[in-house]
């Protein structure tokens, strides 16, 4: 039996076709928008139909260099980034150490405290804290005044933003450090103890040096996430006139007359800063694998804290109260009060002042129902579309020998360095010029979100695929299954729950996203975060708080469902 496999030309086509198609797709999602942004930043007119044809100029970069507000924005970004990261690292590392390596009481509460703020949208966090810490009518100031303490809390400041970022970005530090600590082979520490080290010295000389690369990696990641964050700095920065780079880019776009080319140049600058930092982080993490990761789960050693046990417990509980309890108290107050005016501390518990009107009236508020509908459609489409795209990409990269597959992976990971606002701007410039009427539809949001969350989605699915030993698929082929049949009968059942959990992650991330959509929405395609932002700008605090509560409840339900899936995927995708 002879099995000729076609002419050389068709074989070459078959080899190149899947990679080429995927590459074209990813190029349109990532490279073209970034390219359009770069292009716009060198033109003197915005690249949109109806505008005069722009000519080449370096003026915007000169303006960035000389503009006082830009330099101030860079300075604020760095200050807030460093301060917020430092605070987040302190909280996250301490919680990680308490939760994995000590006999702190209520360990599961500590571990819960480490991750739970991750599932709260930073927009909701910022809105809630503006209710608490506004210098004029913030609840905290009402309380301080009632207690006769001559202090004013002002959340609309650099310090205020550092505080809010520190609270809501601590989970990233927690995740990195906790995983490094629990993957570390305890024999490394036991060996040091056997050879005469005291517990304190083993911690200082062995444990902490081993997690330094992971900690540094978390530091840079957190810093990058903070300096590209738009919702928090917009909500907490603009009332007090404290501007960071994303807020500056946004102001350039919405000021009249708008300066879109200068905004593009500023976006490019922010992106370059992120490229440098992420490259540095990747180097660090490459080293980390070599040092501590053993691949096996160990039962970690736990240090006896003695009388400090309850101090550790109090720290974790205090963090939960400040990061979750206080904001929800504030949102509940604002949502249920008939009047936002509070005359004294007694008003917080005066039940006669409360009603559910602002929540029940949401039913009759069309922007809310439309926003909710849009959010769910966009989230679901992003999850399905992203899931399929990342599955195809990851399978091509890790399970075929197709040429150019490494380039695919590189492009898929590229958005790590692209600020969300820049993705929004890039999509705007791209789809205003491509003669496909995508602008103004929900689909453009789906594509922008897919690009924005590509690294998370791709990494989620590729790590699931990597957990399935290649032998499992090859032995199916040896047993007589075709390539496609082996994938369907063996690979897909083994990674199914991993794919579901990644899709759910994409859904949740899409539901929270404000930055990538702020330049792309139209009145018909507003999503919930936009609706929420509108309530805040128009001063409808009661409705804002009511929407925030419902929105958070929705995210919470999804997250709980997600954790169930995440747990399952870990169990079923193991290999013998």
């Amino acid at each position: 039996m002879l099995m000729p496999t076609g002419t050389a030309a068709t074989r070459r086509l078959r080899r190149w076709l899947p990679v080429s198609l995927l590459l074209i797709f990813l190029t349109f999602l990532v490279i073209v928008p970034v390219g359009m942004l770069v292009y716009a930043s060198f033109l003197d007119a915005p690249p949109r139909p109806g505008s005069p044809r722009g000519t080449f100029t370096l003026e915007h970069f000169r303006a960035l260099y000389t503009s006082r507000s830009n330099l101030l924005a860079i300075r604020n970004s760095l200050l807030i980034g460093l301060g917020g990261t430092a605070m987040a690292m302190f909280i996250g590392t301490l919680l990680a150490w308490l939760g994995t390596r000590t006999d702190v009481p209520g360990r599961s509460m500590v571990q819960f405290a480490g991750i739970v703020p991750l599932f709260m949208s930073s927009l909701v966090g910022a809105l809630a804290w503006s209710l608490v810490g506004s210098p004029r009518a913030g609840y905290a100031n009402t309380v301080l005044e009632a207690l006769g303490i001559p202090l004013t809390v002002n959340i609309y400041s650099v310090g205020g933003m550092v505080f809010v970022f520190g609270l809501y970005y601590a989970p990233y530090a927690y995740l990195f450090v906790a995983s490094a600590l629990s993957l570390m082979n305890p024999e490394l520490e036991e060996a040091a103890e056997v050879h005469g080290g005291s517990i304190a010295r083993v911690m200082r000389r062995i444990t902490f040096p081993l997690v330094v690369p992971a900690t540094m990696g978390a530091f840079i990641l957190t810093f990058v996430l903070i300096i590209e964050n738009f919702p928090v700095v917009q909500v907490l920065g603009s009332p007090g006139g404290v501007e960071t780079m994303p807020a500056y880019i946004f102001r350039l776009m919405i000021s009249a007359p708008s300066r879109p080319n200068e905004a593009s140049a500023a976006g490019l600058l922010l992106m370059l800063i992120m490229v440098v930092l992420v490259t540095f982080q990747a180097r660090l993490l490459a080293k980390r694998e070599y040092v501590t990761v053993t691949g096996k789960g160990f039962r970690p050693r736990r240090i006896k804290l003695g009388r400090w046990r309850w101090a550790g417990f109090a720290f974790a509980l205090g963090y939960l109260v400040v990061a979750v309890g206080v904001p929800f108290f504030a949102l509940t107050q604002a949502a249920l009060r008939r009047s936002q005016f509070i005359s004294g501390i007694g008003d917080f518990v005066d039940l006669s002042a409360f009603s559910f009107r602002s929540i029940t009236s949401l039913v009759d508020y069309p922007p809310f129902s439309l926003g909710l509908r849009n959010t769910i459609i966009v989230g679901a489409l992003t999850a399905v579309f992203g899931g399929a795209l990342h599955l195809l990409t990851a399978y091509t990269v890790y399970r075929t020998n197709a040429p150019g597959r490494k380039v695919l992976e590189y492009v898929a990971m590229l958005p790590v360095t692209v600020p969300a606002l820049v993705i929004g701007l890039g999509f705007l410039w791209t789809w205003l010029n491509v003669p496909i009427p995508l602008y103004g539809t929900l689909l453009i949001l789906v594509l922008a979100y897919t690009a924005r969350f590509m690294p998370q989605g791709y990494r989620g699915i590729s790590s699931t695929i990597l957990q399935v030993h290649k032998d499992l698929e090859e032995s199916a082929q040896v047993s007589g299954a075709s390539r496609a049949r082996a994938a369907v009968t063996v690979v897909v059942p083994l990674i199914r729950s991993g794919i579901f959990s990644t899709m759910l992650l994409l859904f949740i991330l899409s539901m929270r996203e404000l930055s990538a959509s702020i330049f792309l929405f139209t009145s018909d395609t507003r999503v919930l975060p936009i609706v929420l932002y509108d309530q805040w700008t128009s001063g409808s605090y009661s409705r804002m708080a009511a929407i925030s509560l419902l929105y958070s409840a929705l995210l919470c339900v999804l997250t709980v469902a997600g954790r169930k899936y995440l747990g399952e995927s870990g169990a079923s995708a193991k290999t013998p």
Partner: protein
Amino acid sequence: MFIRVSNLTKTYGEARAVDDLSIDISEGEMLVLLGPSGCGKTTTMRCIVGLETPDIGTIQIGDMTVFDSQRQISVPTNQRNIGMVFQSYAIWPHMTVAQNVAYPLRMRKRKDRAGLDIKQKVGEALNLVGLTGVGDRGASLLSGGQMQRVALARSIVMEPRVLLLDEPLSNLDAKLRDRLRFELRDIQLSLGITAIYVTHDQDEALALSDRIAVMREGKIVQLTDPVTMYKQPDSAFVADFIGTSNLFDGTVVGSSGSDTVVKLDDSGLEIQTTQQEPEGKQVTVCIRPEDVVIDAPAEDRPNMWKSAVRVSSFLGNHFRYSLAVHDGPTLFAMSHGSRAGLQTGTTALVHIAPDRIQLLDR
């Protein structure tokens, strides 16, 4: 010839994993590919099953050409009808034992599957590997030895033309390994199936094979039956790999009667051998541990030396010694029988018959 591999070459970038390799395997034969890691043995096997595409060469199985680089023939893996046991066993954790074993039968074309009693076939295969009655168990709950048996059942249930085994015993503990090695050979012989077995363990290779091919850097350096391989290795590399522990570099310095005299490079000790080699030739002297006679009667004979017993180790049915020859190298020796052996720290007279000493090209 049943399997004929000709001029097989497979490169990864600059590295030649398999380098112009040719080998013929007869029907019903068990051939072992033996060599250190990276010698190309696994790549050769993966080329035969079709999981790797060679750059050059032809592979013929029975009357079917499964690969020919010139005629651009490459039969897909799933149509080659070759059974394979993977090193990691590759038991699908989401299926039961029976589902795992039935898989190759279910993958057959509809017309080939007609009239096939899959359940009965699976039962037979599980019986053959000694796993009667575990078919309903989840595959992820099995022990290592059981997984190995399931993998074997799965690869023979399809009645393959060839059975490939990729270090199938390397993840098992020593006792189980010995037993399964025997069972594996028994099953292969009783089915009369042609098999290729990849390993880096020389004991496994000697115990299982009809013929052994020792590989190095993508080429076969020696191909012969196990006894000849052990008794007459072609080169120091093969002797070393097959487990001869006494290998010394030396130079032929002359002759004594009909014997050749070799002077060892490191210690200067002179050794006589019946093997004829020209004076001045650089050689490797090869002495098998069981050829070292311990506590020889004190008559004057060639290759008789006083030596100190450095380590004496009792292994049940034999002793192993490490003996430091006075003004000479350290020899590893073996003595059978359970009579009292030499004590560590004593002195012994050792002797090696000149016709047992082999000179190998360096």
